[in-house]
């Protein structure tokens, strides 16, 4: 059958037109027709502006005729466009009345808020033409891609080991050895490395289109260029960052990113996107017109009563997330990334903002968060909140979840860091963190799977810097060291920064191993900061958002220099993946509810079954009973972890195992390589089955099992 509605009804300057479909918004292709649709509640008129690729002046500006408007939507079909060679934008007519929230300006050419392919910043760091009338230019996307049998992996949340990564920093360093440095294709080249490390999920710092030249400036310290490297500043919510694609210069970022996801999936690695729905790159009233401000300012932004911009993001403006139309846009964006890019999950930057109403007040049941929790297409997508914002709302443990949302557990980071540097009074809190923070997540029945545990993330020190610096050193950012977090809970082990002192360097390596050990033996979803596995340093910079250079780029030479750290990471990740008993979904009972002879989980101290309770204590041990974590009917091993964050050695009395089982030592951070960690499954027998000596600031992991494999080998 042929459709009867595929014939032009109008003509304008030689182009054949027809009334469009209001939905879907944006540009979509059907045969020889391209449908353009944009909504604006307050605009009075709209014009479609068409350019040939990269040309400064448009070749035509087509008004949306009266009959092309339905409700508040302007839609138009243009026939026979050679759409690979077309860039499009809109002009909006309407009131300019900032006090009322309106900032329409017909002189501006505006980006489609639903643009799926954006050009204009195609090659990283290539200076744009600042005078250009239209900077970030929408194109019509080729949305067909042969995924073959790929789909999101749906890895159980509790089995994830997340690797937080910046696409550019990951492989931009000269020693990365990849052909396509700093790109999606570069990530693909490093897949064998990720597999060797053992992570099964990469969480990408923002890959939506942003402008690396936003707030571009030379460093007042040494003149080197400062970029918006991290990209927490969206230009578009539907388009990938062109300059992260090696084929971005040919506008093929969509295919390159899809191929990256497909290749990662084929290797068992999920992809989570860090998404920034709290603000846009348009800044405050002094910022540029990119899109939203000129399309429908009052709809897209949270405005003060006098029409100014609320700044809960700390970045000039706040997206009006609980306006029904903006809410729909966010839902549609996320659905698009899942449907068209097979994305496995999202981490929401400053997610507390998503729960504020249009006047900025926190809501108890925010409709946006509820929509996302119940959305059918996102039904198996991981949703992770950074449960705070720059306006002082801190919701770790109380983020509205409907049983679906997990959180970055900032309290895990803080407590574990304090424990690592032997703070007093922190042991009680550390114990909560190790068992999956039931104090935060048990009451709403959210379970262990609500807790994303981490010691380091992109915000703050890298792990090596955490044990090498007492204070941040952000002078290179050009803000007199005022930017970045001041409360780092870090300890330099005796000298600020790099040193030749072998004892200090040994201690730093041990502390790094202690940190990853605590992360990997804790219940919850562990997240590793990219580079920590090779001891990456940012020279004490704890806010490297603008350092597009060796400060923020991974130095792959570290892999050899810190080979003991990389080896340790690999082994402990493997250990976690082999032991179901470390990866519970729901909180532990701390009792022997199945009458197996031992509780599912038990705390110990230097004396078995007698955990320390004193304020100053820095020793603790726990035992996991593998009988409670069967896989296909086979019980897991017993696991015993002794933690000594005291600066003196301590003996730990071991709990006795069931008849026929013996303790084997998997890891001992107090030992030098290769005695620091064993091959999982081949752990040597512990000499004394009654007591172990745990060195100063050291952790030991024992495995209890029946068959003595070490005798066999």
């Amino acid at each position: 059958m042929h459709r009867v509605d595929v014939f032009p009804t109008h003509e304008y300057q030689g182009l054949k037109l027809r009334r469009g479909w209001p939905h879907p918004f944006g540009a979509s292709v059907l045969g020889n027709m391209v449908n353009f649709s944009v909504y604006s509640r307050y605009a009075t008129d709209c014009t479609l502006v068409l350019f040939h690729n990269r040309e400064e002046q448009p070749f035509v500006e087509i008004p949306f005729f009266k009959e092309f408007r339905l409700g508040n939507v302007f839609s138009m079909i243009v026939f026979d466009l050679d759409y690979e060679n077309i860039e499009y934008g809109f002009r909006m007519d309407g009131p300019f009345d900032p006090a009322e929230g309106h900032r329409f300006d017909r002189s501006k050419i505006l980006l489609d808020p639903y643009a799926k392919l954006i050009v204009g910043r195609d090659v990283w760091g290539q200076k744009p033409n600042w005078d250009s009338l239209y900077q970030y230019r929408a194109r019509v996307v080729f949305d067909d891609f042969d995924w073959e049998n790929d789909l999101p992996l749906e890895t159980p949340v509790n089995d994830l080991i997340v690797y937080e990564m910046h696409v550019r920093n990951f492989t931009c360093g000269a020693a990365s050895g990849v052909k396509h440095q700093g790109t999606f294709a570069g990530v693909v080249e490093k897949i064998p490395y990720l597999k060797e490390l053992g992570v099964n999920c990469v969480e990408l710092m923002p890959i939506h289109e942003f402008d690396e030249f936003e707030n571009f400036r030379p460093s007042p310290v040494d003149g080197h260029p400062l970029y918006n490297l991290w990209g927490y500043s969206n230009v578009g919510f539907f388009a990938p960052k062109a300059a992260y694609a090696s084929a971005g210069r040919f506008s093929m970022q969509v295919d390159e990113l899809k191929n990256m996801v497909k290749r990662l999936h084929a290797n068992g690695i999920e992809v989570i996107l860090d998404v920034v729905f709290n603000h846009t790159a348009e800044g405050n009233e002094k910022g540029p017109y990119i899109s939203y401000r000129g399309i429908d300012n009052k709809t897209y932004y949270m405005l003060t009563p006098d029409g100014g911009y609320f700044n809960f993001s700390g970045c000039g403006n706040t997206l009006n997330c609980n306006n029904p139309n903006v809410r729909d846009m966010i839902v549609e964006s996320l659905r698009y990334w899942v449907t068209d890019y097979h994305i496995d999950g999202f981490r929401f930057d400053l997610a507390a903002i998503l729960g504020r109403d249009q006047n900025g007040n926190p809501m108890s049941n925010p409709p946006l968060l509820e929509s996302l929790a119940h959305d059918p297409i996102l039904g198996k997508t991981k949703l992770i909140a950074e449960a705070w914002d720059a306006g002082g709302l801190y919701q770790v443990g109380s983020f509205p979840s409907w049983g679906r949302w997990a959180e970055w557990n900032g309290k895990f980071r803080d407590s574990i860091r304090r424990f690592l540097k032997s703070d007093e009074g922190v042991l009680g809190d550390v114990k909560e963190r190790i068992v999956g923070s039931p104090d935060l997540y048990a009451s709403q029945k959210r379970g262990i799977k609500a807790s994303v545990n981490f010691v380091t993330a992109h915000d703050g020190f890298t792990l090596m810097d955490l044990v090498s610096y007492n204070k941040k050193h952000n002078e290179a950012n050009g803000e007199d060291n005022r930017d970045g977090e001041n409360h780092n809970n870090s300890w330099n082990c005796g000298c600020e920064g790099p040193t030749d002192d072998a004892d200090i360097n040994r201690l730093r390596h041990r502390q790094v191993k202690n940190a990853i050990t605590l992360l990997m033996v804790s219940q919850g979803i562990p997240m590793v900061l990219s580079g920590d596995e090779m001891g990456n340093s940012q020279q004490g910079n704890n806010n490297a958002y603008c350092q597009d250079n060796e400060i923020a780029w991974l130095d792959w030479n570290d892999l050899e220099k810190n080979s003991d750290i990389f080896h340790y990471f690999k082994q402990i990740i493997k250990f976690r993946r082999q032991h179901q008993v470390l990866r519970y979904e729901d909180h532990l009972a701390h009792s022997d509810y199945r009458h197996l002879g031992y509780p599912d989980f038990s705390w110990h101290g230097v004396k078995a079954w007698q955990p320390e309770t004193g304020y100053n204590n820095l020793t603790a041990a726990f035992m996991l009973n593998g009988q409670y974590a069967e896989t296909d009917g086979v019980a897991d091993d017993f696991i015993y972890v002794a933690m000594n964050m005291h600066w003196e050695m301590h003996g730990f009395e071991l709990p006795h195992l069931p008849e026929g089982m013996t303790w084997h030592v998997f890891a001992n951070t107090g030992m030098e390589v290769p005695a620091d960690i064993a091959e999982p499954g081949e752990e040597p027998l512990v000499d004394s089955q009654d007591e172990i000596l745990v060195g100063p600031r050291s952790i030991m992991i024992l495995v209890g099992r029946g068959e003595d494999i070490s005798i066999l080998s």
Partner: protein
Amino acid sequence: MNIEVYKVGEELDAINYSQVQDEISAILEKSSSVVLDMTDCRYVSSSGLRVLLYSEKVASSKGQKLYLVGLSAQVKDIMEVTGFNNFFDSFKTIEECMQHIK
């Protein structure tokens, strides 16, 4: 076996993709296999990539084969980073390709 060689021009993009597609489709109608000689081709755009993959899919759906020959470094790179290379058997020269087909 009925094989035909089709020579692709210097560029395969929005300007000529439609014509190239028609011509390859016509060959696939009458021949069992087609060899695309890309030796002169320096650039393949998004639409060009789709011409290649669509033709390959038409060929496979009919039990026929489509081969690529003489990919330039740049075209090869574009195909690798977008993953389109995974769908094709590709050869350096026509002789090599013919050798393989035999």
